[in-house]
């Protein structure tokens, strides 16, 4: 694994993505998701909302890095808030 040049932050990042996917799978088996319409202009399943959430979080992080000098953790906190909002009401 040395050739992959792991660092702690990236390892934690992938670990959390992995855990999210495992968690979502378990959740899906426990109670299958149904398409529904929230504040987003399209019908989405839980997995769709997760994808939209993760992708938009990536853009939130990029925007913070490119446009501001604020610490990246601020973007992460905002993303988590945004994602929970999206998963619940999206």
């Amino acid at each position: 694994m040395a050739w992959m040049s792991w660092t702690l932050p990236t390892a934690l990042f992938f670990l959390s993505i992995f855990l999210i996917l495992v968690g979502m799978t378990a959740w899906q088996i426990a109670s299958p998701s149904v398409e529904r319409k929230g504040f987003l202009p399209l019908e989405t399943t839980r997995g769709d909302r997760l994808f939209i959430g993760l992708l938009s979080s990536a853009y939130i992080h990029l925007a913070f890095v490119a446009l501001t000098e604020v610490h990246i953790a601020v973007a992460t906190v905002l993303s988590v808030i945004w994602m929970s909002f999206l998963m619940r009401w999206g």
Partner: protein
Amino acid sequence: MNKVENNKAWFLVLPVFAIVAFSAIIPLMTVVNYSVQDIFDPQTRYFVGTEWFKMVMTDSDLHGALLRQFIFSFTILAIEIPLGIAVALMMPTKGRGASLALILVAIPLLIPWNVVGTIWQIFGRGDIGLFGAAMNGLGIDYNYASNPMHAWLTVVLMDVWHWTPLVALLCYSGLRAIPEVYYQAARIDRASRWAVFRYIQLPKLTNVLIIGVLLRFMDSFMIYAEPFVLTGGGPGTSTTFLSQSLVTQAIGQFDLGPAAAFSLVYFLIILAVCWVFYTTIMNMQKDK
């Protein structure tokens, strides 16, 4: 809606998952790791956090390349999709003519990217190329090596020549899949040629067009070899697209960290645009 769930089928997908893991997921993870470090050699590496991302996203050269990339992709989509449909509609459907037309249309698809670049590089030259000489003959001082407009025209024309056949073949197969009864019904209703196209052929082509648009968008967004051979990104930087900037950075200057950060931003852009395309087209279908 009750769906029968049989999770055993997932085991059959495992080989694909393994291949994708080795060919895409692990390399992508490595790129993510590289993007946050300054790596001199495997032993000497420093964590730099988001520095490369900041550098890449505030780089005006890359903004230019990104803008040109979008203009290029949307230009060729706007030309290739309607043109491909038109070609498919005009292709003969029966007899020897049909096979001949299929082969003729498919020929550009068989030519490797860099050869296409070379062909057009010669084809467009004013002294020995047919196209360049013809343009000069018409009194247009055509020179793709010095005039940015001409360089753009040549690159777009080259892509249209190379890839319209793909759209045409997809549409052709889509058209062949329409049952004859639809046309009979249309004839009974005395539908015009336009009505047949608008209400029978186009709706039935939606699925192949989704694939066509996505493939052409992704491919053109990653275009590298053809403009590299044809214009080398010039004159100046007028035809330097994203992948060429990336290669210059990653291989030319060996700045792996910034190149990795750039790759990830590039990847996110493609992912977002494809998702938007896919969702829009899927929802258009649902509304019907």
